[in-house]
């Protein structure tokens, strides 16, 4: 049974990816598109081969800056979510500000940040990844905390437990499923943030800069190769979150039926 399940959970996605690549290849071949219109999957291995060193170093740059931005988003988002979850006044005060901040297209923030901290490329990129991804975390934590049924609080409060104890023993673990749901969204958002900075304000670092150099050199297969590399990193990070969720909030998952 379990072997069959593993086969299914690994095999099915791989088959789906292969089918997708075949369809893509067929699409390009069928229309006879040149690479500047759309590169085919078969154009990509040479691109990877030529620039493999660059892919490794720049992929790593993109990855670590995204992860640092995401970690900051988790810390800040949780603190903000806790403040809004526990205090009605703070929630009323901060929500419109947060929504307004989130509504600003982050592409417009890039030049501002780049000017504000000239030359601090790593910092700028991390900052943007952070800014774009903390919102869903803050909202989910605040909602998780503010919708905690009063009985949960009462069973501990009636015994004389402090607010901090109630938070650690009940509120925090109970919010974890929502938190991980938001984290899955935040992971992809953080990648968008990192790459926005790397592409819009290129500084020779990260996959975004590699993408930009592909554009200036009309190396179209390279551009597509970067997109696929980004997708790959996104998938890896996403499944890291899924694994963490299984460990820390696996209890929330129920077997179907």
């Amino acid at each position, binding site marked *: 049974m379990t072997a069959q399940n593993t086969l299914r959970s690994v095999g099915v996605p791989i088959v789906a990816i292969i089918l997708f690549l075949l369809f893509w290849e067929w699409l390009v071949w069928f229309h006879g598109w040149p690479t500047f219109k759309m590169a085919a999957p078969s154009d990509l291995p040479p691109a990877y081969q030529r620039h493999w060193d660059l892919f490794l170093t720049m992929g790593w740059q993109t990855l670590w800056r995204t992860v640092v931005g995401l970690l900051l988003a988790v810390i800040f988002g949780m603190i903000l979510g806790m403040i809004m979850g526990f205090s009605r006044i703070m929630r009323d005060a901060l929500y419109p500000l947060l929504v307004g901040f989130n509504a600003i297209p982050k592409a417009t923030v890039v030049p501002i940040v780049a000017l504000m901290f000239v030359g601090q490329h790593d910092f700028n990129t991390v900052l943007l990844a952070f800014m774009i991804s903390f919102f869903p975390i803050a909202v989910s934590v605040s909602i998780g905390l503010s919708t905690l049924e009063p*009985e949960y609080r*009462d*069973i501990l409060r*009636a*015994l004389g437990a402090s607010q901090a104890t109630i938070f650690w*023993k009940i509120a925090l673990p109970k919010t974890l499923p929502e938190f991980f749901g938001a984290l899955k969204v935040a992971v992809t958002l953080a990648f968008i943030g990192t790459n926005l900075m790397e592409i819009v304000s290129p500084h020779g670092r990260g996959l975004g800069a590699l993408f930009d150099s592909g554009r200036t050199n009309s190396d179209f297969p390279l551009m597509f190769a970067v997109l696929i590399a980004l997708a790959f990193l996104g998938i890896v990070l996403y499944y890291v979150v899924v694994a963490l969720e299984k460990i820390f909030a696996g209890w*929330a998952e129920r077997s179907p039926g």
Partner: protein
Amino acid sequence: MQNLIEIKGVRHAYQTDSGPLPVLDGLEISVPEGGFVSVVGPSGCGKSTLTRLVAGLMKPDAGEVWLHGERVKGPRATVGMAFQNPVLLEWRSILKNVLLPLEIVPTKLSKKQAEERARFLLSLVGLEGFEEKRPSELSGGMRQRASLCRALIHQPEVLILDEPFGALDAFTREDLWMTMHAVKEREPFTGVLITHDLRESIFLADQVVVLSGRPARTQYVLNVPKHGPRTLDDLYTPEAAEQLNILRHQIEIAQGRAPAEEAQP
């Protein structure tokens, strides 16, 4: 004899947008040590407010709540609570859920003794073999049993039950009534039960307090005879029928559907 729970002239009102909403007005309840009182009354008459007052989760506007000769001013570790919603923590096993209060309340029990006690309570309510299960794997009635064990683990003087069986089907509820009697024999406590079920009120308690409609005051007190209904068959005797009739009539008065008579003697 000193009463373990003493509620004297309690008044309370909630502040709402349209002014104060009085819920309790002139509440008098006393329960001797080891006694068990059921509180019945129309919906929304402030019964749950009463439990929160006894648990020290809130303070009345006026009047006094005494537990064991001490005035209640805040939460006390000598109280155990169970609600209609069993509020078990989904990420803990049943055993760990039962042990939760001992992580808050100071205890003399060692870890091993505490676990033994939890296992004993679980076996008392018929949950032997479910210690390592998650709450989501249990039925509603079983979860309520586990919640009862959690309320008792720290040997509280007072057990407050706020409609704990309200969401269960009739047969499961009767099962749990029998469990309550079995538990009380082994684990003595003084009980306050909030309920909407008149049969439940006389079956479990030795004193039934009928509250009037909002704002609630003590409208009537029925003393259930010592021998009286303690098995399910007892609920179908003429004596039980008579007690239920009295209570039903009092509820009708409380709801304003029957005229109030002269005060009870």
